[in-house]
């Protein structure tokens, strides 16, 4: 058996949030998982997962203070590592967010992050929490083998705008249409939590590994 062919996922730990469940989901699929926080190791990795919970500003500060921001950009932009950003991790890869005043993101994608406005929501509750269905054009890449309009678990008050995106993507509608998931070359993100989305999430994580 050629051991080098077994994919190893490196989950980035920068002191924010919950990395156990995403680890468990990959392990369930039979993928080897490792937690990384050393920027040098991150910059050398080929499969990365960027989790995130809480505030955009706080997460960006943690990434910058630890030097992980540059390591991620190095791995993804210069070394073609593939990356999956989950929830806030997806948003962090965008250009900026209006959370806690304007904060710049990793800028791997041009998309911006904004809060749901009350006008858009029309008295719908915030955060957008629970399983909701997503839409995509083609069942390919990240969305291969999924059923039509599959349900995924969301929990967020800010969302990424569907703008300037050149790749495969999915949207979800909660008062307003927003970006639910994307795959732009080696850069993937999901606003929902695939590791919390039962079978549908496991299929998506399998797809990510097999991209």
């Amino acid at each position, binding site marked *: 058996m050629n051991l080098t062919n077994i994919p190893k996922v490196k989950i980035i730990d920068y002191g924010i949030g*919950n990395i156990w469940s995403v680890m468990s989901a990959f392990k369930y699929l039979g993928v080897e998982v490792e937690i990384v926080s050393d920027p040098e190791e991150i910059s050398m990795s080929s499969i990365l997962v960027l989790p995130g919970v809480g505030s955009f500003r706080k997460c960006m500060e943690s990434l910058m203070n630890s030097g992980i921001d540059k390591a991620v950009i190095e791995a993804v932009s210069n070394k073609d590592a593939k990356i999956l950003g989950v929830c806030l991790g997806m948003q962090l890869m965008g250009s900026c967010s209006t959370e806690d005043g304007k904060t710049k993101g990793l800028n791997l994608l041009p998309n911006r992050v904004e809060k749901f406005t009350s006008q858009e929501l029309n008295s719908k509750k915030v955060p957008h*929490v629970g399983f909701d269905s997503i839409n995509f054009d083609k069942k390919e890449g990240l969305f291969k083998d999924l059923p039509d309009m599959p349900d995924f678990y969301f929990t967020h008050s800010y969302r990424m705008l569907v703008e300037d995106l050149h790749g495969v993507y999915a949207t979800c509608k909660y008062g307003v249409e927003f970006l639910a998931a994307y795959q732009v070359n080696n850069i993937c993100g999901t606003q929902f939590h695939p590791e919390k989305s039962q079978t549908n999430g496991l299929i998506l994580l399998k797809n990510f590994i*097999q991209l």
Partner: protein
Amino acid sequence: MLKKRVIFTLLYDNGSFMLSRNFRLQKVGDLHWLKRNYNFSDIAFSIDELIILDVTRGNRNEERFYEHVRFFTEECFVPIASGGGIRTLEQASQLIYSGADKVVVNTLVVENPNIIIDIATKFGAQCIVASIDVGLANNKFNIWTDNGSVKQEIGITELLNNIASLPIGELYLNSINHDGTGHGYENELLDFIPDKFPIPVILAGGAGKYKHFANALQDERVDAVATAHLFNFVGNGLQEAREQLLNDKFNLAVWDVNLAKYLANCI
């Protein structure tokens, strides 16, 4: 379209899982028992969310509880909320680092909302579930805290208005009088919810069968239903209840339960 949710609540007391009736606890078994009597992976694929509450009446062994929480994060691919006795940001952080996606706060809501603000500042409002225990005494509904042992003066609607102004993601509205009876939810509690309440509502306390879920989920004020009854839904009870709700066109999330087994070690 956003789906409604069916939630399973596990009550934990010092290493054991408990059955609660009107907040009086009865020991059912430990993790070993739970694994033997419930095919947990089947249960896990029949619910939208898991809540694990440390309702230990004596001294809490928090480390041991965190280990139990971690076990479930490895077994279920649904969100996990956990709490019980949270008084500090440190305790909330420990639960989140043990794999909980959300923390459930109860006494803090009444006695020290500032800590809730601290938790939300660190982890976001979406990860805080405010749990409210309502009990009937002398024909009057009151808020009870500290595992239902302390009656609070604050009115229910007043407290719910406070909750609406705090960084809180969800409300877990529990009936002490219906808790563990299996007679159905105490729908009257929903009347205390102010108009245009901005936070999703989980109704808990009293579910014993499919019909109770269905009745509650029909109410537009209810976003999710929870049950903590280990026996009413033993075996594949929850699985059947979910299938029936889906057959009856309730707005619940759908996934392929059987396919999940094939995905195990598929890579």
